[in-house]
């Protein structure tokens, strides 16, 4: 059993869907920093995905700093990103801009979109 779920949708690249599922599992507290991440083979067998794709998922997540590889021990979930609040916010610049652009295109105003973000924020449990 994997410690996270992936609901595959046809059309989107498989590795992007798995990467997102892992990030979401961390955001919702299903995966904790320091806990073991499945090996490439396990990932491939459990999700019924190509081993090359599973490998791509692990390298991408390691590259982004979401996973840490400890030689001899295995792969674990990395601790949350360090740095000032400003630095960490800066990592989301692109996504935030994209959200604002889409919101404006759909004719939503500032309050509506802030409320919608808040609603999603509260859907997730608090992680200390």
């Amino acid at each position, binding site marked *: 059993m994997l410690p996270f779920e992936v609901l595959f949708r*046809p059309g989107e690249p498989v590795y992007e869907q798995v990467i997102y599922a892992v990030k979401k599992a961390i955001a919702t507290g299903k995966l904790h920093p320091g806990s073991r991440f499945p090996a490439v083979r396990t990932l491939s*067998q459990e999700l019924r995905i*190509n*081993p*090359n794709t599973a490998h791509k998922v692990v390298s991408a997540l390691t590259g982004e700093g979401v996973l840490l590889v400890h030689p001899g021990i295995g792969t674990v979930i990395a601790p949350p990103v360090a740095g000032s609040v400003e630095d960490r916010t800066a990592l989301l610049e692109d996504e935030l801009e994209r959200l604002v652009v889409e919101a404006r295109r759909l004719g939503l105003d500032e309050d509506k979109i802030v409320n919608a973000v808040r609603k999603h924020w509260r859907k997730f449990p608090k992680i200390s």
Partner: protein
Amino acid sequence: MNAIECNNLCRSFGRVTAVNDLTLAVPVGSFFALLGPNGAGKTTLLKLILNLLRPDSGSAHVLGCDSMRLKSKNFRRIGYVADGQDLPDWMTVAQLLDYCRPLYPTWDEELARRLSKMFDLPTDRPIKKVSRGMRMKAALLSNLSFRPELMVLDEPFSGLDPLVRDDFIQGLLELPDDDCPRTFIVSSHDIDEVERLADDVGFLSEGRLLIHESADLLRDRIRRVEVVGKGVAALALEAAPKEWMEVKRPAENVLQFVHDAFARDTTESKLLAMFPGASVTARTMSLREIFLVIARKQRIEKGREAA
């Protein structure tokens, strides 16, 4: 390095050209899905690769060996499971395994036991008395157990129930890859089965390979686009760019088409330059949708040639 290389391969049966000047390379360690409607030439192509049929012209190389010179020592490295395959029906599954074991120096008894258990096979019943799904699983078991470097699967999922299909896929993924990289070539008319497994996909139609590229690139490149704006009404549909397929204007302000060469960075701005003030949305398509669009386009072009 390529596990399979076909060069200008041709094969006809009477007046029907089953494989038509086909050139293909499948790199070692990849999973290649050969897709196409029934009668497209998938089975013929796989049989040519395995020297079960001889080409009229052209050549195929398999694991570095000319297909027409494949000998038993080569076949010990190649697994083959096909829908409706001949099996020694009078044997039980256990007898089949006993029969295969000494033929293959790379036979992995531990793997054979693990797969047998996973597949839940009745080992003491004659193969002719087991269900279709069990029969396919027995064929797969006897092939995976010698850890083939190349696995050729012809329509392995057809007529199998979802649970058996899942067992089957799990079995494929169970094959270890620590000693050498494994290559898979799987033909199927059921695209959904292979969408999550395939590195590369090939679309075969009337013996020709219409498309051969990475599944991810294909999904990136072909997108369903919708443009909404006043400028759209002025476009003559016949004058649409040639990389637009299935162009439709369901309403005066709405233009829909399938883009054959979508680029994340540039296509949207190009469309906005064509239709100032319009809104553009592009969405990804499943391999199934992509396949249907390409097949329809092929049919239209053929109709034009005939006319």
